[in-house]
Each structure stands twice: as C-alpha cells, then as structure tokens.
C-alpha cells in the first residue's frame, strides 16, 4: 500500500509540474491567418497622424508588391497586404474597427491609432484575439499589453545624441579637453514641453563630460544678452518650435559656434531658411535609404511626393517603418508564424529610416536621430566623421570661424551606428 501510495504521489507530482510547466508559458499568437500571406489591418480614426501612418505603410507595401513579396525560408515568399478600416474617433469606434478587421479580413497584425486611449482600446481587442499590434505613437505607452505591442518610435532628437557625436569628434584632441572635461555646451530652450526635452539633451551632454549651461529664452529680443552672458562655448543647441528656433538662429546664433536646431522634422524649418544652411537634428531625413533596398536614397520622399504631394512627415515614415519591421521579422524568423515573428523582432537590430531599432519585448531601446544640413532644396545627412564635422561648420558663416574649435583628426568608429548614406541628394519635395 505504501509503495502504491508513493508511486501515485510521484505520478501526481510529475503531472502537476509538467502541466504547470506548459501552462505558464506565454500563450503564442494565432497563426491561422498567416500562411505566406500577412495581412496588416490599419485602424484609421481620421486623425492627421493616423492618415499619414496609413499613407506611409501603403506606400511601402505597394513598393514591396513591385518586387513580389518577402522571400524567406526555403524559397518561400510572403505577400504583405494592407487593409484599412475607418473608425469613429473614439476608443469604442477604434475597438469596433479592430474587431471587424480581425473577424472579416483575417488580419495577422493590427496598426493601432496614435491616440493613446484609442490605442488602448484596440490593444484590448488585439490581446484577446491573439493578434500582433503595432503603434506609431510619438511617445511610448505603458505596455500592459505585453509582448504583443510593437511600438514604432518616431525618433527622439531631444536626447541630442547625433549632434553630440559630431561635437565629440570636433573637440577630440583639442587642448584642455579630456574625457571628463570636454568643453562647454549651451542649450537654449523655450519654456514648457521644449524645456523638458532640453533637460534630456543636457543630461546626455553632461554624461559625455561636457559642461552644460541651459538657458530659457523668453523672446528673440533678449537673445543677444543671453548669448553674451553665456560666453564662449563649443556647441549650441536650440529647443523651440521650428519658427522660433529659426529666428534665434538668424538673430544671433549663426555668428557663433556650430549649433543645431532640434526639431521633429525638417518641413517647418526649410521654407524659412532662405539661402542659409542650418544643422537640424531630426528623427529621420528625407534622403535616408530604407534598410530593405526597396527605396534608394531619397526614394521614399520622392514616392511620397508623387503619390500625395510634399515631403513625408515623420508619421508617414513611421508607417512605412512598420512594413519594414514586419518584413525583417519574416526574414529573420523564416516563418510567418506570429509567435516566431515576435521572437525575431526582439532578436536583431532592425534598420529603419528612423535609425537602427533594437526591440525589447516590443519596446524600442535607444533610438538614434540624425543630423542633417538643411539648405535651399537640399538635405545632407551629417555623419559623425570629418565630412560631418565640416558640414556642421557650414551652418556657421565664415566670419564666425575663429570661434569654432580645430577639427579633430580622422578615424574612430562612430558612437552611434550610421543611420544613413553619405550622399547628398535633393528630395523631390520642397
């Protein structure tokens, strides 16, 4: 009796432990719809941001159709399609649209609205239906939806990473500079949300060993006094709405050391530049090449101009990046199985026009921005090398040259992976 009881006890223990071992595994996603054909359903609530995300994604998918699809595994090809569903601009409307896409179109992945409340409503539906979800929100959401939500960032230039990469090269070897005391950085900002972004930029500069002076600028008239009081600096960054930042640059900044306007995109700055050239740190540049070879340098901007007119805003780039991310996931996973796609997403850096993105359970880790030299009808990416150093100086007129430090000798690997080609191109847009 004791032997039988012990055997039953052991058997029960094994049964419970094995059941628990399989039950606590994260539930994978529904692969039923995914067999060499991935349908991405877009919930479009009609907001400008949603419109642009949809435009960008459709543009990318059309281009993919031209080359026949995504090759993967043993000679298989996955077709990627987009199905758009218009939704009322409410959380309930967005959720209803998501349900409709899942029920009638058999979509594998959803692209949620950029509005946080509507996105949350769509996420609830996606989690329940075990569908993948992408979001092109400007800011990450608190991910209570776990692994399913892939947040595609629109870039974070406020961290001032790329500009500082170039400045690092400029001050390197300069007398008196060391790892802990590299030089002086002046950060000008407008109070409010721009001030918060400036704070992050200052943190980054301090981390790199610069002495940072952050000053709020009440108006263009007071700029002269502020600049005089700041004294001699190695680099200046301006955090303000595009027009205001541009007016500061024109008012006094261009006579000083290299500086960067921090902006979400170049569109609003370019028309006001006239014949001037200014360095702008932006999430992406129109001349950047997509990592998948579908669009060459500047190709996406040209295609967007042909299809919709004008320069693509960052939302459209984020939309196209969703397609690009899905494509990379399929290639790396060698499968269209959604669970495996998520595994692939978190396993490798994905090169997008927004920079190489590394995901961790759907949340992107460091997202680099790019610095471009914006001129009349031209945008040149400034890579952190000698060419970039020289390019940044071009934003400062020659008469102010003595203020600029001596450029550093060449070489050394850039701290941030180069996100773009080095060619200068003229976008077809403005």
């Amino acid at each position, binding site marked *: 009796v004791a032997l039988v009881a012990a055997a039953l006890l052991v058997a029960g223990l094994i049964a419970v432990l094995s059941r628990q071992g*399989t039950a606590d595994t994260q539930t*994978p996603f529904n692969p039923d719809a995914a*067999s060499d054909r991935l349908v991405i359903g877009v919930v479009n609530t009609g907001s400008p941001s949603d419109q642009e995300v949809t435009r960008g994604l459709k543009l990318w998918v059309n281009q993919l159709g031209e080359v026949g699809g995504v090759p993967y595994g043993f000679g298989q090809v996955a077709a990627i399609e987009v199905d758009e569903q218009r939704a009322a601009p409410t959380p309930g409307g967005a959720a209803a649209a998501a349900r409709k896409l899942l029920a009638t179109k058999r979509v594998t992945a959803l692209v949620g609205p950029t509005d946080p409340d509507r996105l949350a409503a769509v996420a609830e539906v996606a989690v329940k239906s075990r569908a993948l979800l992408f979001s092109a929100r400007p800011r990450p959401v608190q991910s209570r939806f776990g692994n399913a939500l892939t947040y595609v960032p629109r870039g974070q230039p406020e961290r001032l990473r790329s500009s500082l990469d170039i400045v690092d090269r400029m001050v390197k070897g300069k007398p008196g500079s060391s790892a802990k005391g590299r030089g002086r950085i002046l950060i000008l900002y407008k109070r409010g949300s721009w001030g918060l972004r400036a704070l992050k930029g200052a943190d980054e500069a301090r981390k790199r060993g610069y002495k940072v002076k952050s000053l709020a600028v009440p108006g263009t008239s007071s700029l002269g006094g502020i600049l005089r009081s700041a004294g001699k600096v190695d680099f200046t960054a301006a955090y303000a709405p595009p027009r205001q930042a541009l007016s500061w640059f024109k008012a006094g900044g261009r006579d000083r050391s290299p500086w960067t306007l921090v902006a979400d995109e170049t569109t609003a700055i370019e028309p006001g530049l006239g014949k001037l050239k200014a360095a702008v740190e932006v999430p992406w540049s129109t001349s950047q090449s997509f990592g998948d070879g579908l669009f060459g340098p500047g190709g996406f901007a040209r295609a967007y101009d042909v299809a919709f007119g004008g320069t693509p805003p960052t939302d459209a780039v984020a939309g196209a990046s969703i397609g690009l991310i899905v494509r990379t996931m399929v290639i790396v996973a060698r499968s269209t199985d959604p669970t495996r796609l998520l595994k692939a997403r978190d396993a490798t850096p994905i090169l997008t026009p927004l920079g190489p993105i590394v995901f961790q359970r759907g949340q992107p880790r460091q997202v680099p921005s790019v610095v471009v030299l914006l001129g009349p009808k031209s945008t040149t990416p400034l890579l952190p090398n000698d060419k970039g150093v020289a390019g940044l100086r071009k934003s400062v007129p020659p008469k102010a040259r003595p203020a600029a430090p001596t450029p550093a000798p060449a070489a050394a690997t850039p701290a941030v992976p180069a996100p773009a080609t080095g060619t200068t191109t003229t976008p077809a847009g403005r």
Partner: protein
Amino acid sequence: VTAAASRVGQAEWRLLVALTTVLVVLGSLAGLAGHYRPVGVVLIAVASVVALLDLRAACVLVALTSPVVSLASIDVGFHLLPSYVILAAGVLGVLARREWRRIKLIRADYLLLGFIAVAVIVTLATYGTAPNTTVLGAVGQNSPHLRGFAQLAAIGTMVAVYFLFRAGGREVVEASVRALLVAGGFVAMYAVYQAIGQQLHLPYTYVNERRTVAELGQGLDYIRVNSSLPEASPLAQFMAIPLFLGAAWSLPWLRRPGWVRRLAAAGFALGAMLVIGLSLSKAGIVAVGLCAALLLFLTLRRLSRRRRLVLIAVTCLVVLGAGLVAVALRGPIGNPSNVLASERYVRLGYWDSAVQIAESHPFGVGVGNFPFWYPLYAPLRGGVEYAPYVADAHSTVLDALAETGFLGGALYLLFPVVLIVLGARRSRRVDGPERALLAGLTTAYAAGALMHLTYSYAYFPFEWVLAGCVGAMVATGAARPAPSAVEAA
C-alpha cells in the same frame, strides 16, 4: 514460419517451405495484377491467426515483418499495419495463455517501464497545452489533439514488441534471429535495387531520394516498397544485424550454431557491409567502426593491457577510416568541412530547440508535442535549418528529453545503456555458440542505439526485436535448448 520451424520434423518442414513458396508466388502474381488490397489483407489475416496460436510463430512473424513492414500499398492503411496486426495477435495469445508470467524482469525493464509511466503521465497532464503555432495545420494522427496519443500508442506498441520477445524467452531467440537474417536478405536485395535503380532511373527508388506523390507519375500508386527504410540510416541500422552476427560467427575463436556455416557467416558480414556502404549513411559507417571494437572486446575473454591498447588503436584507425569513407561518399575528400557543415546545418537547430524546450519545461511537454513547440524555440540564426513541418528533434534521446522532461529523457537514455552493459557482461561470461550470438546481437543493438543519437523515430520494430532478444538472453541465462530436428538435419 519456415524460420521458426525448429520443432517440426523434416517432412513437415519441407511441406511448410513448399506451402510458403506457393503463397509467395501467388501473392506476388496477385500483387502484380493489382490486387494488393485483398492479397495483403488475406496474408495478414493468415499470419495473425498463426501468431495468435503460437508465441514462437508470433515472434518470428514480427521479426520477419520488422524491416519490411509495407508489402501492401497505403490503400490498405497505415504502413506499419502488418507488423501491428501480427503483434496484436501475438500479444493477445500471450495474455490468453498467461505466458507473460514467464517474464523475469531485469534492470533495463524497470527503466523502460519507468519511461513509459513518465511518458503517459506527462502526455495526459499536458493534454491541450500544445501552443498555437504554424504546425497546428497538421491533420490526421498529426493534429495537435491526437498526435500525443498516436505517438504514445506507437511507443507502447514498440514496448509490446520488446515484451513479446521477453515472454518468448531464450526459446524464441534463435528462430527470430533466423527470421531477421531472412528479412536481411530481402532488405539487401532492396538496397541493391535502390543503388542500381537510382542510376538507371527505375521506379520505387526512394533511399536518399525524397519524392512527393506528385513526382511518381500518373496512374502509379504510391507503394513504399519498404517504408520503415525510406532513408539511408534506418536501412544501415537494420543491416548492422547481419553484419555483426556474421562477423561474430566468422571469428575463429568463437563457436557458431550448427545451422550456420563459416562461409555463410562471412557472406552475411560482407554483404551487410556492402549494403551499409551503398546506403551512404554516415551515422551507419561511423557506428559500425566503433561497434566493431565493441564486438572484439566482447568476444575476447582475456584482454591484456597490450591487447587493450592495440584494440583502442585499431578502433581509432577504423573510425578514422570510416569517417574518411563517409566523407568521400558524400563529397570531395579534400574538403571534409563541407560534409560537417551540412550535417551541422541539418541537425544542430533541432538539437538546440530540444534542449531549449527541456530547459524551459523540465518536466516535458508531452509525447509527440515537440513539433508544436519547435517554432517557438528554433534558433533564429541562418546557419541552421528551420523547417516547422519536420516533426522530430533528429535524435531519439533529445526527443525524449524535450517531450518527457529530464526524468523521462534520463530513463530513455539509460534503457539502452543498461541493456547493452547487461548484454556485454553476459556475453563475456557464457561459452559456446551463445557467446557469439549474444555478442553479435548486443553489438548490433549498440550500433543502432549509437546511430539514434543523430536521428529520430524509435518506431522501427526491428530494433525492439533486437532489444527483446538481448533482454531475453540476459534474463533467461545461457541454457541452450536441445537441437531440433531441422538443425540436426
């Protein structure tokens, strides 16, 4: 039946041979005329009745059908049908006559029973937990709600083969060995046909040729001439039986049974070696090299230090030579990395996945559930194969590890190890023809176990026939039955 007929007289034996020959000829003619189904069913039915009535006949029939399990087309049903029906009849007979009481359990049996218990518990406990992956599209016995039980049934059937022979005991071993040698002749003919047929583009040539039904041409039924041997390694694994038995009987310092001449023994060994070479199985060639040393070790009663060193040195040379031959057969000899790289590409991803599954689920995911978990754990790196439709870990031990956890995996690994050790010990203690027989069987089983480290499916009945024979000889001792009328003749 002719192979089993060690108890009948000379006249009856001749009659049986004549009857069998007539049946085979009639069956072949009917088969050529396209009546596979009725002929197959009639033959299986007749064999099953015989198996039901006599345990020795059941063992011999199972041994005979163990490699050649698909003489009927798939229209008849499951390709293992003949073996399974005959086995079921044999087991029923054993139960009805209470012959199972004759089984004297040995240590290996406890390990096998323990593994089966763990496999059943884990499979039942994890029922319904197969993850939602692309493999869910599988249907029939491979669908997620059936696969676990289907695989469990297959393993259970193989364990039944093992215990059928254990119930038969030492008495059935010799007859079964003769049956295996007869079957080996058919397999050798099949292998030679494969080798020549592939060169001449003849039909039904499958070994190392993966073909789909669509490739067979119109009006051609899909008949797998030998569906347990559609690939090179199982074919080579089976041919290890005549190889090592023939080698053991050819050794001058060992005695062989009266019914085997030395010339015939040498013929078995050389023929089997030729077939293994023709199969191009790398695992087979390497395993044969290693196990040749084991055979020598088992047959030499006293091994001095010098002899042991010589044996190790010769083994190393043989394995090196076997490796070079294996490389030469599959690619340019000057570039062995290509062969290794291809093997690495094919197998490493599955092995890696199995280990990952076991690490995440130390108590197993249920028998047959490896393919459902595989897409979640398969490596993403491009240097290894990813094929979600492949249903196994390319290693039986790793299959057991992933599906039944560390406990099940350990029990499954220890079963052949302990059985080989027991067989080896026993063979070094006995004398006479018993020694050569047990050494040959143990070595052949060891070669198969070694080969199974690189491919899956423990559902080849012949390896369980072999295990049952070794187990029976270990359990029942060295007493040799009195020579029969046939042997005397």
